[in-house]
């Protein structure tokens, strides 16, 4: 059982000469001073063991992609990072989810406070049935953020999400009048309006067409300069295009119950995962032989 755990596939801490290339960025082999970490993370839905012993660290101003076949637990892991799994009554989390070294699942921690620092963008664009302006202003308003000028904040957030020029003349109109791609960028703008530290993205482009997808991907690369981004994606090309590091998950059926438990197979620089993976399962998945 222990043979497949993620720990032994982790890359060793690199020496100075062991610096890898990722796109045009030179990054250490594993994140230095990670913003977030999961330690021996296990998630259960009732009796169902959804995720087994995930150890991951997410680097500052990096884009970390989590990929793998359906049911491998990557979305579940993502939803633990800002405690969105709290909304599922049967969910139980074991292990640690560290944010700046602090366990977000500790009793004294308020999940609402966690979410103001760790924002989230969902699979399907989910703007509120309000105006474009009110969609952006919602977060700052509910969190009681001190805002000198809400108009400026709205503009800044929309510019940050590369949406300003398209919507500046219709801020008071319904967000539902926007296209799917615009709605998703609005959701990203809405998230950055609260000035989070980390942005979680759960398959943010799966409901978008290729052009809208390309725009969101460009946006992610821009946002990387200011935010730490953790993205779950089904699209391997997307992971290869945008991410600095990639974590590959798979699902292992239980011998007795047949329930599929997700586990981390390999975590490395994206360039390594896609060109020279350590694990046979990663290679099979990347090359399309499985999953």
């Amino acid at each position, binding site marked *: 059982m222990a043979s497949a755990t993620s720990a032994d596939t982790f890359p060793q801490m690199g020496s100075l000469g062991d610096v890898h290339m990722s796109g045009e960025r030179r990054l250490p082999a594993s994140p230095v001073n990670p913003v977030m970490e999961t330690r021996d993370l296990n998630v259960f839905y009732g009796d169902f063991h959804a995720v087994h012993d995930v150890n991951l660290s997410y680097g500052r101003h990096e884009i970390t992609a989590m990929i793998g076949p359906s049911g491998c637990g990557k979305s579940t892991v993502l939803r633990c990072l*800002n405690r*969105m799994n709290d*909304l599922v*009554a049967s969910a139980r989390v074991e292990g640690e989810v560290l944010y700046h070294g602090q366990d977000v699942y500790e009793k004294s921690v308020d999940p*609402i*406070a966690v*979410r*103001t620092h760790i*924002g*989230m963008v*969902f699979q*399907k664009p*989910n*703007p*509120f*049935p*309000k*105006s474009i302006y009110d969609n952006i202003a*919602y*977060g700052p308003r*509910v*969190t009681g953020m001190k805002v000198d000028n809400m108009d400026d904040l709205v503009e800044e957030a929309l510019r940050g999400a590369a949406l300003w020029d398209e919507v500046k003349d219709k801020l008071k109109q*319904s*967000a*539902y009048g926007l296209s799917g791609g615009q709605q998703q960028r609005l*959701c990203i703008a*809405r*998230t950055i309006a*609260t000035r989070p530290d980390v942005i979680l993205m759960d398959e943010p482009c799966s409901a978008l067409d290729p052009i809208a997808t390309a725009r969101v991907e460009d946006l992610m690369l821009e946002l990387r300069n200011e935010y730490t981004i953790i993205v779950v994606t089904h699209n391997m090309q997307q992971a290869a295009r945008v991410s600095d590091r990639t974590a590959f998950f798979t699902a292992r059926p239980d011998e007795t119950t047949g329930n599929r438990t997700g586990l981390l197979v390999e975590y490395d620089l994206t360039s390594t995962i896609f060109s020279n993976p350590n694990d046979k399962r990663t290679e099979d998945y990347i090359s399309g032989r499985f999953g």
Partner: protein
Amino acid sequence: MSTIDGTTAGPSSGTGPRGVPNLKGRSRPAERVIVAGLIASAGLSVVITIAILVALVEPVIEFFRQVSVSEFFATEGRFAVIPLVTGTLTVTLIALLVAVPIGLGAAMYLSEYASKRTRKVLKPTVELLAGIPSVVYGFFALFFVTPRLLQDLLNMQVNFTNLLSAGLILGVMIIPTIASLAEDALTAVPQALRQGSYAMGANRMQTTLRVVLPAAISGVAAAIVLGMSRAIGETMIVALAAGAQKNMTLDIREGAQTMTGFIAQTAGGENPVGSVEYNMLFAVGLLLFVITLVINLISITLVRRYRQEY
């Protein structure tokens, strides 16, 4: 069905060349029967409404030949209707003041806060209130609310029949209507909106009040309008608890007959067909119909305008 697959389908009519699928329309008589039945069902309610209106109009015309319009829309006199209107509107307002906060509160609790198990028990219990016959409510108002609650407990100087207890109990009666329909509207709001709100760092109350409720506003408004229509049209409670005395007053400690109360009393059988009293019945009925219609229209317009803001 071989005709679906073009490569294997022989031309069933024998005319087309081999391999060309037959795409001609087939007659579907059963379908036509069903559609006709559905149209008839939908049309029936419209027809009945119009039929009722028509049935009302003839005696009403007759009534206004016997009694002048100013005598009808007067505050006092044998044929005055304004006291009945104020009676109806006063008890309805009291009922809404009771039922809207409690009904919406119950709906928000059931939809946003209660666990699945709690909701399973609580919602049918709330709906059970709707099954109590209104005559029971009426007696409850008359023999419990007025003497025990208002007079003994709250030490209020109220008459034996009064608008307050009628309105309060009317409100209790429409709570399940508002709670149940509003809960349906709130529950129908997509989970994705709630998740979006929580992910922004909103708490449950903010999510409920600022995202879920506005998103469900048309359904919630419909629930309130339906509750209000039931309150305006309710007869037994007001006939018992508000009294059978025409009374031009806004003092809720006094009794005052409502429009429905008047109709119930006058339709008692002692007025011969064609008499002024008999015809007045229909005039009051038509007015009641118009008032309900106007209130519904105003509510619909308000909801539309509010929704367009998004």
